[in-house]
């Protein structure tokens, strides 16, 4: 009985972590699908989004929720800027060069965050939240809001990808690049949009992560590994697979703490990622996702 309660409680944490990972993984997956490289600066893009949101709150005094749109605008602009300054110039070289420069970009973004905001720890709100109790299970209100926000963001993205022309053009480009170019899909505009969306989603993950815990300059970098694990599990290049991948990794990481030290959580994500890469490098889902 006690085990069941623990399991339920950890599942709630897992879903919350999973929804944060999902937002990051969708961005990583979309960028890989269209630009064909693993974007290592994605974690630090999350950090940028979280800090921009924080500063927006500090400057305006608006309620905590405003950190989300503000952070999204900030990170989307940063992503686009980085692409124009760095990635665009080397796009026609080998993917490995893009990958290494994104690694460098990660370090640069993190240093900029430290330079502007300093190394200290911030949090969005100092209020102490009273958890809700349902039987033996406790639910922190913030967790509900985090999940709700993630669901809304993913739903909006889904509508964009399936209902709008540019959304379809994005899917077409990640599906079959050659055909997309021959049919005159505006590649450059799709790439810009990919960075805007990837950046906004990263900021979503960053802000929600900041609400769940605190803001530190390494918050995004630390979560990058599980984000990649989620993207790979769902089949990299497939945004819909990333949703399931994020949830599975999030749940696995939290539930694993029943058996092992919580500090080994990221190792669980890593083990799953390596296992998937060995057994099913195309991701665990077949076909459409």
């Amino acid at each position: 009985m006690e085990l069941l309660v623990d399991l339920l409680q950890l599942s709630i944490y897992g879903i919350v972590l999973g929804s944060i990972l999902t937002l990051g993984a969708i961005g990583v997956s979309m960028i890989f699908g269209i630009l064909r490289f693993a974007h290592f600066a994605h974690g630090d893009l999350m950090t940028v989004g979280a800090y921009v949101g924080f500063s927006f709150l500090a400057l305006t005094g608006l309620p905590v929720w405003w950190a989300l749109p503000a952070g999204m605008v900030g990170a989307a602009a940063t992503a686009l800027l980085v692409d124009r300054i760095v990635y665009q110039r080397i796009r026609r070289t080998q993917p490995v060069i893009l990958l290494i420069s994104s690694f460098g970009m990660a370090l640069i973004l993190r240093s900029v965050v430290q330079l502007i905001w300093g190394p200290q720890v911030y949090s969005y709100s100092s209020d102490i939240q009273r958890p809700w109790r349902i039987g033996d299970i406790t639910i922190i209100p913030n967790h509900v809001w985090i999940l709700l926000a993630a669901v809304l963001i993913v739903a909006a993205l889904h509508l964009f990808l399936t209902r709008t022309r540019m959304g379809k053009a994005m899917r077409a480009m990640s599906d079959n690049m050659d055909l997309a170019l021959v049919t005159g899909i505006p590649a450059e505009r799709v790439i810009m949009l990919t960075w805007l969306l990837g950046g906004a989603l990263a900021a979503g993950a960053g802000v929600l992560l900041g609400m769940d815990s605190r803001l530190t300059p390494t918050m995004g970098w630390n979560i990058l590994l599980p984000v990649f694990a989620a993207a790979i599990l769902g089949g990299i290049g497939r945004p819909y697979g990333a949703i399931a991948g994020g949830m599975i990794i999030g749940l696995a990481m939290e539930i694993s703490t029943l058996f092992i030290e919580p500090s080994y959580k990221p190792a669980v994500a890593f083990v799953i990622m390596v296992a998937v890469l060995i057994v099913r490098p195309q991701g665990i889902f077949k076909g459409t996702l």
Partner: protein
Amino acid sequence: MIKIDQVSKAFGGIHAVENVSFEIAAGRITGLIGPNGAGKSTLFNLVAGLIRPDRGRITLQGEDITGRRPHELFHRGLVRTFQIPHEFSRMTVRENLMVVPAGQAGENLIQAWFRWGRVRREDRRILEKVDEVLDFLEIGHVADELAGNLSGGQKKLLDLGRTMMTPARAVLLDEPGAGVNRTLLGKVSGAIQRLNGERGYTFCLIEHDMDLISELCDPVHVMANGALIASGPMHDIRQNDHVREAYLGGGRLVDHRGGRGGERR
């Protein structure tokens, strides 16, 4: 419609296409045949702008299009399909056709947000066009199927459908019959004939199926080792000694449809 004028292309020391000239006449279905490695696909790639010729000129309705990029040609009305059909496999058949027409309001990010009305009207117009194309090709029943799940023949029809979504009137078909089962082969060739007869499309097609060639094409051009070795109606081509030699080292150019199973290749 399309004039190929003394076009040559070499890869390393190999002359893939050597001084080839012929015309793809408007409103006709021109055939291009030849043994494997004759340079047919390279010639298609040269015309469609995927590679640049070393020498020679290609014109489309009098306008020089030598070395133009594929998407420019696409919007000028010249399209090339591939031997292995290309499709957006994780999108539905309907979506595959919807993404084709470019330059619409929905593509401009600002308009997409502020001019919903216009974007919607345009989307509706495209959807109508898509349904019309699906009807014409008789693949309406798979409209909501993922394109990756279609059979080889249905993918070829989708290729044709994609060209129908554009203002394209000249289409280069690379082996429209390859990998298509017998039933659908009739549909594919029927669609080509109707597009040609009813809608005035100009086709040039590479094909190994001699029955399909003689059913559809006039005139037929024959390439071997990068050069054009014969041109004329299929009836004459069959009697041509050079062609026989190129194909079978002196043997006869035969039909082999009778001996073949349902699915080719």
